[in-house]
């Protein structure tokens, strides 16, 4: 009887021991999870963006273009941004898409009214635009620098111009055309009917070259900068000069549609087609061999230089910039083609 009781006692003891062990394991597990959870909870909270307390205001510069997100302008932007970072100024790229003038001018006006410190903008040869530069920007004392497309010095009060020498560019292209085509032939120059200053400069350069070759006939075709108009004008030109050998799209935007029309009539290859690199399709056309030559500008350098000068102007208001402009490098790229 006593033995039995003892056995039962021992069993109870053992049970108690295992119970204790189990419970302590459970305890450890639960506390581990609790701690893990606590750690998670503390780290989960996101950081509230700190209110800006810096007293010293960064210089606010805006770069406005009417051809946002094109390869040419992307390069300009990257050059400009890098330079701005270097100088500790904050730069924003604004603009309109697809050569939308209205939106472009609106952005300009917003920038002026927002009293930014400086504006770098693609020049537009319209009265409204020039007015904004001359009157409004000057009224708010915001320095404006034109890039890539200049406007007549007499008309505008821009601080300076940074970009390529369009006149020289025109000459280079014309020279290339001559060297490719030969001293005789018929050339069509397709440009905008709005008399933009930079286009005129280009044409002047070309004409100067062509004038030295009397056996080269030139036809200047003016058109609106819309696809249908470009096509119809190109068609007219081809009708007028069926034997045309060379085409130059003075406004690089028109190159695409022009080539499209030409290709509709016949093979593109035998024609000598040139344009500038500041159109959205220029590079693509060049790489697919449709263009025989393209005038390459230095977009990155343009961006960089423009910012540099603007900052300089802001930091030393007394020092004035060269009104004639700062010209950047240009080179002509020739396509390697086989109909030489």
């Amino acid at each position: 009887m006593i033995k039995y009781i003892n056995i039962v006692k021992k069993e109870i003891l053992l049970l108690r021991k295992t119970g204790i062990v189990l419970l302590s394991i459970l305890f450890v597990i639960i506390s581990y999870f609790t701690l893990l959870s606590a750690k998670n909870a503390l780290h989960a909270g996101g950081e509230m963006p700190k209110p800006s307390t810096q007293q010293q205001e960064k210089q606010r510069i805006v770069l406005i273009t009417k051809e946002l997100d094109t390869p040419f302008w992307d390069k300009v932007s990257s050059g400009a941004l890098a330079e701005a970072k270097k100088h500790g100024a904050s730069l924003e790229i604004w603009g309109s898409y697809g050569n939308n003038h209205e939106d472009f001018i609106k952005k300009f006006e917003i920038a002026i009214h927002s009293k930014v410190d400086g504006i770098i903008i693609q020049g537009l040869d319209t009265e409204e635009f020039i007015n904004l530069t001359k009157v409004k920007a000057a009224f708010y004392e915001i320095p404006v620098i034109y890039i890539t497309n200049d406007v007549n010095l007499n008309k505008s009060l821009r601080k300076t111009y940074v970009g390529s020498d369009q006149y020289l560019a025109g000459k280079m292209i014309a020279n290339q055309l001559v060297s490719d085509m030969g001293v005789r032939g018929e050339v069509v120059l397709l440009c905008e009917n709005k008399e933009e200053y930079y286009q005129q400069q280009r044409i002047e350069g070309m004409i100067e070259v062509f004038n030295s070759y009397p056996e080269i006939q030139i036809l200047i075709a003016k058109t609106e900068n819309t696809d249908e108009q470009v096509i119809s004008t190109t068609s007219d030109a081809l009708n007028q000069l069926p034997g045309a050998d060379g085409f130059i799209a003075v406004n690089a935007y028109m190159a695409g549609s022009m080539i499209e029309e030409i290709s509709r009539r016949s093979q593109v290859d035998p024609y000598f087609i040139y344009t500038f690199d500041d159109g959205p399709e220029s590079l693509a056309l060049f790489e697919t061999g449709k263009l025989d030559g393209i005038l390459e500008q230095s977009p990155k350098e343009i961006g960089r230089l423009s910012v540099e000068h603007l900052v300089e102007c802001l930091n030393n208001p007394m020092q004035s910039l060269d009104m004639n402009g700062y010209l950047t490098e240009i080179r002509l790229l020739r396509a390697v083609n086989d109909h030489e």
Partner: protein
Amino acid sequence: MAMMWIGLTYYNQKTQNQYNEILQRYLLMNEVTSASQQLITDLNNYLITPTKSNLNRLEFSKEQVTTAKIDIMDLKNADNDFALSNYVNLIESLKETTNRSLTFKSENDTEGSAKEFNEATRISKYISEMTLTLLDTELKTYERFYRGIIEQSVQLKKLGLWLMLLMSFVLLFVTYWFSRSITRPVQELTEAANELAKGRFDRQIKIESNDEISFLAKTFERMRVNINNLISDIHEKAQLEYELQQSKLLLKESQLKSLQSQINPHFLYNTLNTLSKKAYLEGSEETSELLVSVAGLLRYNLKRIDRAVTLEEEVTVLKQYLDIQKARFTDRLNVFMEIDENCLRVKLPGLTLQPIIENAVIHAVEPDEDGGRIWIKIKNNTDYVTVEIEDEGPGMTEDQIQHILLNAGNIIEQSVSEPSTGIGFSNVVKRLRLFYGVEDVIEVVSGKGYGTKVILKIPIHEENEPK
């Protein structure tokens, strides 16, 4: 638990505050838009109907716009620095344009005023647009933060649950442990008390705790130890007393016997002497010698029996006794003696041998018609002297031997087969043991039908050895 509650509430509050802050921003931006639109409307009203009340309204709107602008300026952060500065300046431009328009109006330059108004309208539109852009930026900026907040609250909920589990667990455990620490000592004490009550004073009482129960246990323990000691003391004393009583009774018995045998012996002794002489005078020499032996025996018996006598004396008495018995039993009694003369000097209590021989005579010789033989051998064994008394009688069973030897201490029990008034065998054994202080002075070898042999081992001590 309280900590948990406080913690969770704090976090909740923090989250709410953050939400509020963010909402505030949006509301402020909206305020700017509506204020600027209101300004344009009021300007328009004023330009159309230039009344004083309109002007007041206009001024009021201007103030609203200014207030909104100031509020907005606090919202600057790293992400929207540029846009916000533009925004603020736009508001400024709007105000300036409005003022210019008013100036023109006051100078009655309607055209100029209208132009400025148009510009103001345009700016107001720009402001509305920019508000949307800003809100968009804000949303993007704070999206991360929102996600963080949501994540955190989820984690906090989980944490809350785990904590609750943990807390319940811990509480249960603590409660259990606590109650155990109270009940366990009490249980142990109860058990110990139970043991004591049952009379088991051997188990030690030990309780490990630091409270009153432990104190109680200690006192219990002391009590137990004391009781134990008392009990053993009582036992010892009882034992001693018992032994003492034994000895006393033994002594008394012997004394009593001795006294008894002393009462009439003097008279008897004298009578015997007279008889002996008379017998001798009447010519019965044998009778006379017999009477002398009897007298000698009697005289010996008169002496105090608790003093030590020499073995020599005992043997002499023995011989006298045997003479008497021979006279009674004649041929039936045959005694053979082998006695070593050298060891008769040892001392032993008086009247030791005679009762043994008497026993032998009574059991071995008397009942039998043919009688019996008795051997008496006394040998010197260096350390002790052996006295062997052997007979051919009916013998005793082992039980009987044990009975006698063990009951030597119990004088109340007397062998039924010893109806004599003489000193019993047990008495002899007991006295021998007491005299020498050892138990095995006497040994009985016997078997039923094989006779009985009583062996006395008398130790030779230096005191016993006469110089």
